[in-house]
């Protein structure tokens, strides 16, 4: 998401950020830019595609991986978290991430000025990467779905043991302390990592590293599930996980190709990359299983798909198709290693591998973007003088995101722990969170 242009900030924001205010005022007096209906239509489509990734995509993907007694709890936490994130987004999230005004001294981290979307009307527009604009409401909605799915992704690390009330409180605080600032840093004009030249086309840093690292911290704060790792906890429905995987893959085209903010050639590049990196990731995981002496499994295929999708996210418009394939394969292999070897060795309970796949896949993708931006017929649209310079910038951005997410989540997690409490009672955990937290069960048999 960087081509020497302001990303996402509304035209109002753009004019305020420009040093020559007089020119901006003259520009404002000229005819206001009008959104191209074609781009607008594509962005509205992309936005609802991302929505499909949350409900039902992620809900089925994660839900199928839990035990049947926690199916509804997992899906409800995802749905409710996303719904809450949407409301928070229009109240203060958009303002903090992409608001039109700079905060004195803090403009590298947050913005302000459009609380309750006060500055947005059907006539206002948001800049894209060329001289085009899209309707600001569309941009606000598109970015809203990113905030919603990122908050929901974290729950993969905490499934089967976190209180519903804790999930809700955590979501509000975490979005405010962690997500909005990171989104601003990476994607908004004036943001720390944006100005540094970090490439993150569709959210490898903002969404996946952020969610994965936050999930890991929260998993440590929560503690292991009762019985983990001695009791068997196999997924209760890989059928639904496979359905969820398919919905995620389809929705991801909105995620990645939508992040171009226009229906142009770079959206097309992001689209083909989202096909091929994912295909490579899915198969690479199965090959890895075979090499490790097992059978190529359905869950392995699904896991590799997600690893490939995650890895290509930051690179979607910054890599050629073969670079994307390489990213998909590397991410899949490293994620396999993390999930199958490192996690058991370290003993943390990242229930559904939010960190193992999203966190690690995101790091591989973000750093890898620096390489494939110019290698394997990549478009070379970064700012850096050389490939290794770009890689260096990517590494710094990754480290900043990891540190921010880890420290922010630790603070927020501790606040929740000492107010409403993080974890359900032993009785609820044993009976399942469906009955214990929601009073209903997924399957009546």
């Amino acid at each position, binding site marked *: 998401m960087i081509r020497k242009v302001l990303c996402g900030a509304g035209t109002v924001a753009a004019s305020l950020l420009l040093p020559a205010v007089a020119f901006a005022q003259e520009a404002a007096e000229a005819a206001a830019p009008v959104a191209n209906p074609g781009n607008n239509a594509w962005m509205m489509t992309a936005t609802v595609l991302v929505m499909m990734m949350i409900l039902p995509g992620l809900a089925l993907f994660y839900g199928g991986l839990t035990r049947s007694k926690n199916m509804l709890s997992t899906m409800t936490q995802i749905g409710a978290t996303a719904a809450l994130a949407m409301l928070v987004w229009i109240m203060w999230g958009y303002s903090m991430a992409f608001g039109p005004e700079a905060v004195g001294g803090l403009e590298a981290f947050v913005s302000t000025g459009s609380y309750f979307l006060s500055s947005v009307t059907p006539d206002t527009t948001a800049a894209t990467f060329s001289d085009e604009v899209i309707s600001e409401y569309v941009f606000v909605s598109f970015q809203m779905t990113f905030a919603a799915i990122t908050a929901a992704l974290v729950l993969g690390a905490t499934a089967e043991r976190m209180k519903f009330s804790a999930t809700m409180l955590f979501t509000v605080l975490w979005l405010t302390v962690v997500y909005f600032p990171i989104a601003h840093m990476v994607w908004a004009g004036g943001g720390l990592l944006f100005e540094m030249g970090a490439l993150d086309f569709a959210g490898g840093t903002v969404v996946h590293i952020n969610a994965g690292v936050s999930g890991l911290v929260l998993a440590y704060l929560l503690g292991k599930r009762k019985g983990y*790792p001695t009791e*068997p*906890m*196999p*997924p209760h429905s890989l059928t639904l996980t496979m359905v969820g995987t398919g919905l995620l893959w389809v929705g991801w085209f909105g995620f990645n190709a939508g992040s171009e903010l226009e229906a142009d050639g770079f959206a097309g590049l992001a689209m083909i990359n989202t096909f091929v990196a994912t295909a490579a990731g899915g198969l690479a995981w199965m090959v890895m*299983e075979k090499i490790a002496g*097992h*059978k190529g*499994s359905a*869950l*392995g295929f699904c*896991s590799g798909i997600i690893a490939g999708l995650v890895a290509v996210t930051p690179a979607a418009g910054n890599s050629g198709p073969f670079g994307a394939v390489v990213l998909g394969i590397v991410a899949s292999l490293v994620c*396999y290693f993390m*999930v*199958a*070897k490192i*996690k*058991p060795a370290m003993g943390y309970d990242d229930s559904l*591998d939010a960190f193992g796949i999203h966190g690690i896949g995101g790091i591989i993708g973000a750093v890898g973007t620096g390489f494939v931006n110019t290698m394997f017929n990549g478009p070379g649209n970064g700012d850096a003088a050389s490939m290794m310079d770009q890689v260096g910038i990517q590494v710094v951005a990754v480290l900043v995101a990891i540190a921010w997410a880890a420290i922010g989540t630790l603070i927020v997690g501790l606040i929740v722990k000492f107010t409403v409490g993080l974890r359900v009672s032993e009785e609820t955990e044993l009976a399942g969170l469906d009955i214990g937290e929601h009073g209903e069960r997924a399957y009546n048999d």
Partner: protein
Amino acid sequence: MKYIIAIIKPHKLDEVREALGSLGVAGMTASEVKGFGRQKGQTEIYRGAEYSVNMVPKVKIEIAASDALAPQIVETIQNSANSDAIGDGKVFVLDLASAVRIRTGETGDTAL
């Protein structure tokens, strides 16, 4: 009369049924069951986490037969259910005290 219970691999059921049919066996009962013997179950692997499953799916067939036919039945099951692999199953033979055909009230061998 004998009561023959055989635990076999599920995919061998059709073969066993055909072989017994040509032997003149008039009826049998088959059910899907789970259990373990020397095979000790199997292993499932989800994202690298191994779970040993103690119970393996099998098919149990039950046949009531005359004393004359019983040895042939046992031999036929043994031959047709054999795949020379671990977990092929077992055959048990019990003495059967009586049998009644519900519709006609016939008893003994004629009821089979």
